[in-house]
């Protein structure tokens, strides 16, 4: 396969550069999602009015630093948040069906069938006591009512599709007999075996070496293209986002500060935090200047500042940033939560 990146992107990304899909056409639509953790000192707000949507066949990258809430967003969408955490507000729509209030039993039928999941460590998803073929067949038995024999045949096909060599032998292998990259391929096969509308991939390549990572990213891009599956890709690695995402959402302290097409956000970020984040990442070209440093660190959930949560670290902050919380504003096809971009901002602020 020697397709150029541009060609590859054009085929995977019919929506690249387009505006956000409306709720009717979106595979996933999240509105004003609030997640809180109950503590002795009252509730801590971990996700604060997060809104985004993902079109069919689109890859949305969610990026941010540790503790920004990116994994939690994925967990909330798949309804895997455990007490003391809870969804305290907002709506989650999966292909036109509201799922944030479904009872547990009904949600269990959706999870794994209509939402597939891939995590950083393949061993969290694989049972070490069963062969990979058994695990695939079981999943298809539960979600598609497929019989044992048919399931096994389909498992061989799936392993072949995700690039496991000699699949008819490997179907009887136990997870420990496979390398890390091969295990992650099996997890991808598990996530896609019931043909879900949405795959949530949380740091799917972080534990892998760079060469294996490239293979897995190609595989994920191909699956989304061939099956029209949407993907929410959570990662801290902007390179991975730029590689396969169509749009990217930047999170900071439980809020989504900017969302837009991947090229726009990586090349010309609007929010001062995303701008700093992009400048802090070393690249393969020698830019001949020091990396951008954002002073300070992200605040704890218990000490989120008033107004814009980024204002103590922002060199563009003005009076209103300290008191008023910025709401997401449309700027072109992007949305950005920053006072610099509304009409009341001081003339010279930007």
């Amino acid at each position: 396969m020697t397709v150029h990146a541009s060609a590859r992107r054009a085929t995977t990304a019919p929506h690249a550069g387009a505006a956000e899909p409306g709720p009717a056409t979106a595979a996933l639509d999240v509105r004003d999602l609030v997640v809180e953790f109950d503590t002795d000192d009252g509730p801590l707000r971990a996700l604060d009015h997060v809104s985004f949507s993902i079109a069919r066949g689109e890859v949305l990258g969610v990026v941010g630093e540790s503790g920004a809430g990116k994994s939690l967003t994925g967990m909330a969408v798949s309804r895997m948040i455990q007490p003391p955490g809870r969804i305290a507000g907002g709506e989650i729509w999966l292909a036109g069906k509201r799922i944030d209030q479904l009872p547990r039993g009904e949600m269990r039928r959706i999870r794994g069938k209509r939402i597939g999941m891939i995590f950083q460590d393949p061993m969290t998803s694989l049972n070490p006591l069963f062969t990979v073929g058994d695990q695939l067949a079981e999943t298809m038995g539960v979600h598609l009512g497929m019989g044992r024999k048919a399931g096994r045949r389909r498992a061989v096909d799936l392993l072949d599709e995700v690039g496991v060599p000699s699949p008819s032998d490997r179907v009887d292998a136990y997870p420990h007999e496979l390398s890390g990259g091969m295990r992650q391929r099996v997890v991808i096969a598990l996530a896609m075996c019931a043909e879900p509308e949405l795959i949530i991939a949380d740091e799917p390549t972080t534990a892998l070496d760079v060469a294996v990572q490239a293979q897995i990213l190609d595989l994920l891009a191909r699956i989304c293209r061939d099956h029209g599956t949407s993907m929410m890709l959570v990662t801290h690695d902007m390179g991975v986002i730029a590689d396969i995402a169509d749009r990217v959402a930047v999170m900071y302290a439980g809020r989504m500060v900017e969302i837009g097409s991947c090229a726009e956000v990586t090349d010309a970020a609007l929010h001062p935090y995303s701008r700093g984040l992009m400048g802090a990442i070393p690249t393969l070209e020698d830019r001949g200047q020091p990396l951008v440093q954002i002073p300070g660190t992200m605040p704890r959930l218990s000490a989120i500042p008033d107004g814009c949560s980024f204002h103590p670290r922002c060199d563009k902050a003005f009076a209103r940033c300290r008191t008023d919380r910025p709401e997401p504003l449309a700027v072109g096809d992007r949305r950005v939560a920053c006072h610099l971009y509304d009409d009341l901002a001081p003339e010279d602020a930007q």
Partner: protein
Amino acid sequence: MTESPRAAEPHVTVSHLRHHFDLSAGRLARLVSGGERKILRAVEDVSFSIERGETFALVGESGSGKTTIARILAGLTPTQLGDIRIDGLPVGAARGRSADSAEIQMVFQDPYASLNPRWKVGRIIGEPIRHLPAEERDTRVAELLELVGLHAQDAAKYPHQFSGGQRQRIAIARSLSANAPFLVCDEPTSALDVSVQAQILNLMRQLQGQFGLTYLFISHNLAVVRYMATQIGVLYLGRLVEVAPAARIFSAPRHPYTQMLLEAVPGRERRGTAIKGEMPSPITPPTGCPFHPRCPHVVDICRREVPAFQRGVACHRADELQLPGTAEREAEAL
């Protein structure tokens, strides 16, 4: 010890380093079960040198031997075979010269594991200079804390009171306290968030400029290596396959494995890759060139003979191959 030739020779010279780990079961168990000896060849005949004030980066995938080399250089793993010299003197001798000039210090990947949680920061940073009088030591610790961007009062705190990035600053301050001119840094920013990584990388470059430090920098992240390194050595299955100035590695790689690593870096410009397979086990390395089963340019001789490391590259076909660098990759993406 002669006084003058310091500048004439490289600061650090590593020659014919070899390290094998014996993973075999005990002799009796082997006799009973008929099992064979299992030798993990972590490092095979690695030689390189680092000029004073330069950063030499070792890159390669997990299992390529990066960390073993770092640990041998830092004296944490005994040298099995090979020779390490600092300023032309064997490392042991250099260390024996005087107690206050530890020649090599190390910065580790995980700042949560490399600082003793029961010691105050002042004691941690002062440990390499514990022979100094208390007053002198405290002054030095305060100076170092300010140098790495913390406060002198932080000496009285414990490691758990600091974030990951601040802890890595403490680890750097400790490595500088005894004036070691050579730091071995094993993935110093891999455990950190990108904004914190930027702070630490900038700090390391600033300290290098200020004190003329020499770094051995180990990382699997090629973009980080691009930012830090002056020279780069590419490791594959315990062997150096290519050594060159950083800019040259990226603009014109000469070993097919180097080119594969560059192609695999994720980003908008990455082409759909033709990367084959995974790195074989270092217990049963392939015959001939260790990279031949994955190499797109393989010919007969590659399967039979281990290529010699000559003029910066270990490849039978180095002279005839024209491999594209990252500049071509960007041009093609446009």
